[in-house]
């Protein structure tokens, strides 16, 4: 009996393979977007964790070259001899045959024993496997057992496997590693392994070109920033998943609706309600697992495609290292399949409820969806109102990033739920303009279609709103950012001297050749309990005219020059709730806040004080970097002359255009992933429309046949069908514009402030909307093209059959 029942249920799919395809595609795409984003996030987190395990760098500060690049080994010796407790590290890819491993060279003597490979975090005894052979040429490569067997005999260095050590990377003594990497006398960075000797000079004094990075694990700002980035991605993944679920919901609803007679017959034949529900659940679970698995494959591909950009963004924006290669963990597969199952369950819940309450003797024909739609519409309106109220409450009283995203979700969902009502209203208005019988029929039939298409249109609304919202946010940010760069990078050239003596000679050389030499000096300091930086700023028109101030007291630059007042960046202002006129405690005393400046792309608090005051507070900070004012046309020549005269590298003399280009490149890369997800979401929405129209197409024959029989040609019907899809898409798009702007406002004024500490002015770009509008109409037209053509090609006999089957 059960077997026969199952056969009866499944026969539906063989009769309607396209519906099955819709369901599978919807679920697979939803799972793909979701799991792709999750894979990226997991990879990034894994990279952070790996970095943390790597020699304990997560909880030890690291010293590296300020401008990037490697260091002479002598710098390590110099710091040690100045009393700093540092340990050198060299790192590089070591290729052997077709495998490449990450080779990490360490000095076991300056590294604390607990940090040695095999120590804490390496899963084995500290220093296990390290002995005199490790230090003395030819040395030893320590690595995981798998990597060890891969490398066996392929290198001029004996390889030793250590249980519990990471695969794909090997440790060697730094001298051995330098030779293997062909970089004698070079190191990449130093770990600060402990407090230095009493009275050891500051890093600024002995090595101004080196910077100490706070341990990544302790760095709240980095953690917070990368967290917000990942939350952003997750929100996008969730949005895409939701859009996909609309498709699934549509397909399942339809399949259940169409199988009502089968359900009734099966029940009448003695299949219990529970058995029927169980069979349906098993059927859906199987479908969900298959589609979910397909979606996971797609998600993996997607993640692989997007990961390099994500890695570049995280590195460029936050300095966080993420490996570019994707590695997949079992947990990811399980989570992906679970979300596919959960999504299917969510999408099918309503239908199940209906089947469970199916009266045994109810008419077995499919109900017109419209019959139930009035009640449904009321329910949707109520839910939308509740969600809108929740969104308003969150906007008023919520705080934190999660609340921001919850607000976003509630507002979007409210808009989506309201869409059918808006469509009905708009169509009712449109019906008033109708002239003639055909137009009347067109409007009425369109209204009749809304319930069936509403899920797909909701998906379109979500996708369009996200597109408008994120697009507005990115464009606003870009506009603000480029304007800000122009202000902030007012000087034509930026030079860095290798040492104080060169800097002095350089100033002499430059004095007759430039309009102004403005020192850029900086001291690291804890500001408002967070690691930040204090800059010294010269009293010069360059700043007075250009510096991007968000708010200030009168005579701000005179006050700064006088020394008792400072400027603070927007992040600090928002975090600490400081406004111009307040006071702030800094190393060196209490200062008045004379102004607030915007400081995009920097997560840390920052303060600017007058150069004279800075010099007296931080006398040990050498003046090595300068901004130069020269006529723009003379900049290139001067840069060349400076390089030649003082033997400076390319990095030491940078012109304004290069800095701007670099900053903008980082900016653009940051939003590559966002743009990609945007396009994907929109495509999914287009797919939703296509599948809805296609599945509805067959159901619409009874409605089309009478019109055809009254004299409308099939071609005319098809054109009307196309027009209808475009009209519905147009109304949806119009509804999406305010929704998208609301989304943009939330992103700019709430999410950005929470995540980065800056609020951006919102600019609207109607041109972009126009393009998107045309695009969405095109998508709708494209999606309805095939269904329309199908109508145009419906054999008249099929249309006639409608009357033959009239019940």
């Amino acid at each position: 009996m059960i077997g026969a029942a199952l056969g009866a249920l499944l026969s539906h799919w063989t009769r309607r393979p396209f519906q099955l395809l819709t369901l599978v595609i919807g679920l697979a795409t939803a799972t793909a977007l979701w799991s792709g984003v999750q894979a990226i996030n997991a990879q990034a987190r894994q990279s952070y964790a790996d970095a943390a395990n790597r020699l304990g760098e997560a909880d030890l500060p690291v010293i590296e070259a300020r401008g990037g690049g490697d260091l002479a080994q002598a710098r390590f010796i110099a710091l040690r001899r100045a009393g700093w407790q540092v340990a050198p590290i060299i790192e590089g890819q070591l290729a052997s045959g077709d495998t490449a491993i990450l080779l990490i060279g360490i000095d076991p003597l300056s590294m604390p024993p607990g940090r040695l490979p095999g120590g804490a975090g390496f899963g084995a005894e500290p220093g296990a496997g390290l002995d005199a052979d490790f230090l003395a040429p030819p040395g030893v490569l320590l690595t995981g057992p798998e990597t060890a067997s891969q490398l066996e005999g392929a290198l001029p260095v004996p390889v030793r496997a250590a249980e519990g050590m990471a695969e794909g990377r090997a440790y060697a003594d730094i001298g051995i590693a330098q030779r293997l990497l062909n970089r004698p006398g070079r190191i990449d960075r130093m770990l600060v392994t402990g407090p230095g000797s009493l009275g050891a000079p500051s890093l600024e004094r002995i090595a101004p070109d080196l910077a100490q990075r706070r341990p990544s694990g302790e760095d709240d700002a980095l953690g917070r920033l990368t967290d917000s980035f990942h939350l952003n991605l997750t929100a996008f993944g969730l949005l895409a998943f939701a859009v996909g679920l609309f498709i699934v919901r549509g397909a399942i609803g339809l399949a259940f609706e169409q199988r009502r007679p089968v359900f009734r017959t099966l029940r009448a034949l003695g299949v219990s309600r529970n058995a029927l529900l169980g069979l349906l659940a098993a059927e859906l679970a199987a479908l969900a697992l298959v589609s979910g698995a397909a979606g996971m494959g797609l998600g993996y591909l997607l993640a692989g495609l997007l990961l390099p950009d994500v890695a570049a963004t995280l590195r460029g924006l936050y300095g966080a290292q993420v490996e570019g290669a994707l590695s997949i963990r079992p947990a990811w597969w399980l989570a992906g399949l679970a979300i596919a199952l959960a999504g299917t369950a969510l999408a099918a819940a309503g239908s199940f409820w209906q089947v469970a309450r199916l009266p045994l003797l109810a008419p077995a024909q499919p109900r017109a969806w419209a019959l139930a739609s009035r009640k449904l519409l009321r329910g949707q309106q109520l839910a939308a109102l509740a969600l809108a109220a929740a969104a308003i409450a969150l906007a008023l009283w919520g705080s934190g990033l999660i609340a921001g995203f919850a607000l976003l979700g509630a507002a979007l969902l409210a808009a989506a739920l309201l869409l059918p009502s808006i469509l009905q209203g708009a169509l009712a208005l449109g019906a008033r303009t109708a002239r003639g019988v055909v137009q009347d029929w067109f409007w009425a039939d369109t209204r009749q279609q809304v319930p069936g298409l509403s899920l797909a249109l909701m998906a379109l609304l979500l996708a369009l709103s996200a597109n408008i919202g994120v697009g507005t946010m990115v464009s606003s940010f870009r506009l603000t950012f480029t304007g800000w760069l122009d202000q902030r990078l007012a000087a034509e050239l930026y030079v860095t001297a290798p040492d104080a003596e060169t800097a002095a000679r350089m100033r002499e050389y430059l004095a007759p050749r430039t309009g102004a030499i403005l020192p850029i000096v900086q001291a690291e300091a804890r500001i408002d309990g967070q690691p930040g930086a204090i800059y010294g700023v010269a009293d010069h028109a360059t700043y007075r005219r250009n510096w991007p101030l968000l708010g200030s007291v009168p005579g701000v630059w005179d006050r700064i020059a006088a020394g008792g007042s400072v400027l603070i960046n927007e992040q600090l202002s928002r975090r600490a709730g400081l406004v111009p006129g307040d006071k702030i405690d800094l190393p060196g005393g209490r200062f008045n806040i004379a102004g607030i400046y915007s400081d995009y792309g920097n997560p840390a608090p920052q303060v600017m004080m007058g150069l004279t005051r800075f010099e007296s507070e931080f006398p040990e900070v050498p003046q090595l970097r300068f901004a130069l004012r020269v006529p723009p046309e003379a900049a290139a020549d001067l840069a060349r002359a400076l390089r030649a005269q003082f033997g400076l590298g390319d990095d030491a003399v940078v012109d304004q255009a290069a800095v701007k280009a670099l900053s903008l490149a980082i900016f653009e890369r940051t939003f590559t992933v966002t743009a990609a997800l945007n396009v994907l979401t929109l495509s999914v929405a287009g797919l939703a429309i296509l599948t809805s129209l296609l599945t509805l197409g067959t159901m619409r024959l009874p409605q089309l046949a009478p019109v055809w029989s009254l004299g409308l040609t099939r071609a005319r019907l098809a054109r009307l069908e196309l027009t209808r899809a475009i009209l519905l898409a147009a109304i949806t798009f119009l509804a999406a514009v305010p929704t998208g702007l609301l989304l943009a406002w939330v992103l700019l004024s709430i999410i950005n402030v929470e995540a980065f500490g800056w609020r951006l002015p919102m600019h609207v770009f109607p041109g972009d909307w126009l393009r998107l509008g045309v695009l969405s109409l095109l998508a709708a037209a494209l999606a309805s093209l095939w269904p329309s053509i199908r109508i145009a090609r419906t054999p008249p006999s099929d249309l006639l059959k409608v009357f033959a089957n009239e019940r």
Partner: protein
Amino acid sequence: MNADLAPPSASRRLCALCAVSLLLAAGPAGAQGFAGLGQAAEGFEPVRPGPFAFPRDHGAHPGFRIEWWYVTANLKDAEGTDYGIQWTLFRSALSPGGTHPDGGWATPQAYLGHAALTTREAHYTAERLARGGIGQAGVTAMPFEAHIDDWRLAGPSLRDVTLTARGERFGYELEMTAGGPFVAQGDEGYSVKAADGMASRYYSQPFYEVHGTLMLPAGTQTRGNGNGNAPPAAIREVAVTGQAWLDREWSSQPLSPGQSGWDWFSLHFDDGTRLMTFRLRDETQDDFASATWIAADGTPTPYRGDAISLTPLAASTVAGREVPTQWRLTLPERGVDIEVAALNPQSWMDLGFSYWEGPVTATGSHAGMGYLEMTGYE
């Protein structure tokens, strides 16, 4: 045992190897004597008798397995408060030959520095490890400089040196001028140290006059070993004067396998004479004791084990173990019958490998100050 050559101390503080063994093998005190010092010495340069060649011998002898420059000083400030400092640089050859044609990191030399500053209430310690061959640590004879990181023992010559070391919470900078000759230990510096013929090259400079500055946390009353987390809020500088003792020793296998630890004394008496004495505790045979009496003009007189007695009088609980911090020493031939007590019984060197070392006061037939080192109290 060893009746004719009365080996002075020799096997004192051969810690370089234990640091390296701690680092490179597992566990400090293996089956081969304290810190693996009883291991075989194949391939390393053997110790041979003969006169020293100064100043060359003040420098490093990389062909030998181990070597050290070891300074202890008893100091007083203007109020008469007692302080002690220790400064040690150990060298350990990681493989025979002592050098490598590639130089740099390939140089098979490891250096270990230990520094301590002891007051009645506190004991601060610090440790530094470094590779030879890259400039981070090393010793040159002319002009004399021994250094590891920012710690230095350097002068124009070893008779006239500046000594500096700084830990996280303490530091010192001392000028040391030798007021007497270098004292060759054993047979012109050939120091046999066990019945089966183990030996080292060994000389001392016990006549340094010292003045300089100590840096220690201001207002501290707490006991500490300098390894606390927070750097001190304020530092107080103390001008001091006093006497220091330098030991120089190198060897390739200084300990007998059964020797598990030692108690070692160096004492400056108020009448200008010095006494160095020790006992080596042995798990497999009788303990081995020895002494050297150094006249005010630097003339050494070695004494065999049965001429001296070292008797623990009282022990203190230090770092969870019992360590004798009060002793009775007698050397009847010199009329010595003294009681030696630790200035600070908690002078525990809680470093990569741990031992007890700190300043002591002597009372009785001869009054004075000195240093005591005790190892192997596990």
